[in-house]
């Protein structure tokens, strides 16, 4: 190719939305506490966008770990109301650790286990079987699920086994001002 022809080609650096938002300190990773559940006693974890947050949440990746030797079912919910008794997760951090002070997310990660009441509100949009002794890693949703103030993204874990099963959920997302 001649020099002239090459000059017509524009080079661009391809940056994904998650990478860009990480550079801006707006990308967060949250992990639930240990979740215990069994037949008729479910477990749940999710990120809640507070009513007055002023941001939308752009959901990226979930991982679901199964520490047991039995598979179980997970349900993915948009905008479900959290169960009555929840704990707030403290293991939430920005993916960009180079910013001081570290940015804090507006979203709150919550979790609950051994719950007997059904989830109320919202929609159960899809489900995944989590095989035994494994970590299921979702594809990068790259922000195709967007949670407005007052909404939530959450995962319900269900088992038909009488023995207690241990699981952990990790969620990643970024936040943009409205």
């Amino acid at each position, binding site marked *: 190719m001649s020099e002239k022809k090459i000059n017509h080609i524009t080079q661009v650096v391809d940056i994904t*939305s998650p990478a860009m938002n990480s550079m801006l300190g707006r990308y967060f990773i949250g992990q639930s506490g240990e979740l215990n559940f069994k037949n008729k006693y479910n477990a749940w974890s999710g990120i809640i966008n507070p009513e007055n947050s002023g941001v*939308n949440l752009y959901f990226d990746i979930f991982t679901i770990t199964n520490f047991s030797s039995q598979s179980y079912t997970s349900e993915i919910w948009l905008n479900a109301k959290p169960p009555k008794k929840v704990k707030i997760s403290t293991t939430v951090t920005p993916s960009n650790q180079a910013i001081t002070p570290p940015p804090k997310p507006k979203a709150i990660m919550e979790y609950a286990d051994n719950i007997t009441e059904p989830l109320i509100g919202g929609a159960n949009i899809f489900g995944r079987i989590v095989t035994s002794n494994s970590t299921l890693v979702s594809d990068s949703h790259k922000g195709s699920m967007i949670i407005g103030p007052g909404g939530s993204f959450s995962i319900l874990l269900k088992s038909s086994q009488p023995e207690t099963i241990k699981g952990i959920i990790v969620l990643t997302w970024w936040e943009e001002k409205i």
Partner: protein
Amino acid sequence: MKFVIVKNKKQPQKVVVLSDAVYHSYLGKYFLGQTDTITFGCGYNAWGALVNPVDSDVNMYLNAYTISNFSSQPLTAEGWLSSVLPGKAKVSKYFAAGNQSITPPPLPKVKIEDVSLVTKMPTGGTYTFVRRVEPDETLTKHDFQGMYIIPPGSSFALYFLSPGTTQVQARVAFGWWEERIC
């Protein structure tokens, strides 16, 4: 890597690349949803499908499907395009727009339908592909990025063959976007 030695005109610009699915979610046109649990076996088949109504005025662009096999049997799922599907279909209520920051949240024109325990096969259209689904697992197929384009009056169906003499349960989920036909 240092760019200082690179001539100014060769400094590449940084661009954020959005996938078509994400772009359509920003527009409120991307949807996710699933069938109810479907039952088949003992000689009876079942299906789950995305059905684009005749009067929808949109084309449907498929981005992803998943198949959850809740049984201990491997299953066979057949992909049928634009076929006439047998049985009385149940319309799913398990769906939502990916973009929940729009008030009120947008609703899809395309319907998710399913039928359990049928014997008739789909007719017309094309039996396009086949997938074997391992026991007790969710098969995921992502990032079609709109390769399958389904017009009004047409459908994308996953038809499950009876695995023999046991009754089994499965569930199908889809991700798709919709574009108005000009």
